[in-house]
């Protein structure tokens, strides 16, 4: 009997245990990214920016060159790297606190310049690394370490929709929001990441993929329930779909 190999770990993913909690979405998004890097054959061309947040150690998992940014500064660091290596693939992988609170300025201006980079934004509606504080994307009435009575939007404002905000800018060529709450949406997320990287390879410009994700530990729910919460609580407020797609010109 000969055995047929039908699945293997992507070369772009290092073989090691991660520090992520059970049910955390980062593992899925890392794997999708690694699979896409393999499929596009860009592992040796890629430079990944590690942000401050749970994914700060991403260079320990993605098998490519990595550079770590200060909190919120990943798009600025990505800009510096890309301006030195315009022919390399630069990926800014960021969480919600990083991208939409402390780093809002860098996010908007990198997008507005149309930097030819790919931004993967993992939105799990909470600060994970520091133990579950309110994020700019924390849902209304959601309980966190710093909103013990629920997020009071009259006091601290409404959750920010990143895709909609960036879609007001002229330069971005691709903006899409996806989710990883079920298999169908995980597949869509992979497609979106692939498109974002392909755009960069083609020199098209700034691509932004927001991925709705889970944080069972800090939400205080089991992984299956966490996925359900993404679907029932987050998706209605953060609608999935393509916000911007460059029209093909003939």
């Amino acid at each position, binding site marked *: 009997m000969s055995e047929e190999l039908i699945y293997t770990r992507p070369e772009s993913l290092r073989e090691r245990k991660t520090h992520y909690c059970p049910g955390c979405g980062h593992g899925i998004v890392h794997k999708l990214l690694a699979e896409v890097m393999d499929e596009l054959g860009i592992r040796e061309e890629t430079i990944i920016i590690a942000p401050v947040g749970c994914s700060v150690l991403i260079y320990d998992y993605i098998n490519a060159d990595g550079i*770590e940014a200060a909190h919120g500064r990943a798009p*600025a*660091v990505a800009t510096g*790297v890309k301006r*030195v290596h315009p022919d*390399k693939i630069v990926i800014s992988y960021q969480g919600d606190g990083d991208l939409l609170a402390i780093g809002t*300025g860098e996010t908007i201006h990198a997008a507005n310049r149309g930097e030819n980079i790919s931004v993967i934004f993992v939105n799990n509606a909470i600060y994970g690394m520091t133990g579950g504080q309110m994020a700019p994307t924390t849902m209304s009435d959601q309980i966190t370490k710093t909103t013990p009575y629920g997020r009071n939007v009259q006091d601290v404002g409404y959750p920010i929709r990143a895709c909609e905000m960036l879609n007001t800018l002229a330069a971005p060529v691709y903006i899409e929001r996806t989710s990883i709450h079920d298999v169908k949406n995980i597949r869509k997320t992979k497609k979106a990441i692939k498109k974002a990287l392909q755009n960069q390879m083609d020199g098209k410009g700034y691509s932004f993929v927001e991925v709705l994700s889970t944080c069972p530990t800090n939400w205080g729910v089991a992984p299956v329930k966490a996925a359900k919460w993404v679907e029932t609580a987050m998706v209605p407020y953060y609608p999935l779909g393509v916000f911007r797609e460059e029209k093909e010109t003939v």
Partner: protein
Amino acid sequence: MSKSVLMKGNEVLAEAAIRAGCTHYFGYPITPQNEIPAYMSKEMPKRGGCFLQAESEIAAINMVFGASGAGARVMTSSSSPGLSLKQEGISYLAGAELPCVVVNMMRGGPGLGGIAGSQADYFQATRGGGNGDYRTIVLAPGNVQEIADLTVQAFDLADKYRMVVMILGDGYLGQMSEPVILPEPDVKPVPKPWAVSGAKGREPNKVMSLRLTPDDYLEKHNIHLQELYKKVEGEVTQSEAYMTDDADYLIVSYGTSSRIARKAVKMLRNEGVKVGLFRPVTLWPFPMKELHDLSKKVKKVLTVEMSAGQMLEDVNIAVNGVTEVDFLGKLGGALPEANEIVKIVKSYG
């Protein structure tokens, strides 16, 4: 031999940087250093380099972090309040051992302060405003020619030691026009095998300042940094001694204030007063031994600076009690006057 040209300090700095192989510049407007980004924006595109006006000082220093991590010779420039914003980035650059040149054309503070030149950021430059045990090499030019020469040196030192090198000038120096012979440095690319460039045919590189595991990783890294700084202290110190051989009194001053101190020395010498000038060119590492040796031979040391007494602390460490140390400080953008210095030194006799 190149011809001497008349140019403004800030523009000379920018031109010298390009000649020294600076390929990337990121900055944000602030007076009194705006001629640097303006010059870069005009010249970089013509000469194959990159000029980018960032959305903030914070973004600019982090673009520097990215470009340096990617292996480029890179510079940013600002003035005092802008440097405060860059401190976090400087700490990260130091933590990741990334080379770059950071320019501070100082103005008066605290806060928004004023736009006239000042020397009130000596502590920030030499002690560091960012977190952690780190050092930056600090070069203090005293005239426009020295701006050119030290800028070239700054890039070489940064690459050699993988450190942040700060050029600490001030608004007066940046705005001043003087004849200068522009350097024609022989730029040899320094190999940077640690830089991120895509892991083609090699193990991936990691540029980072986070060191969590194993438990002693961060401690060991800090010990390594301190050993590096010790080496720099032994190799990089620069200073100038002017008319000090027979001096009874010694004035210690750097940058713009040292120009006025030099004039005072000449005036005093014309009146027969034996006085000399000691001018630190590197503020970190501070020329401790050189100043200590000189101070042993004089009756009194007078520190002159445009601050409330910041370099004074290093002067006191260097003199270490072997002679008396006096102080003249000017605040908030005011300049010392040569007559004032003359009067003080004459009062010692």
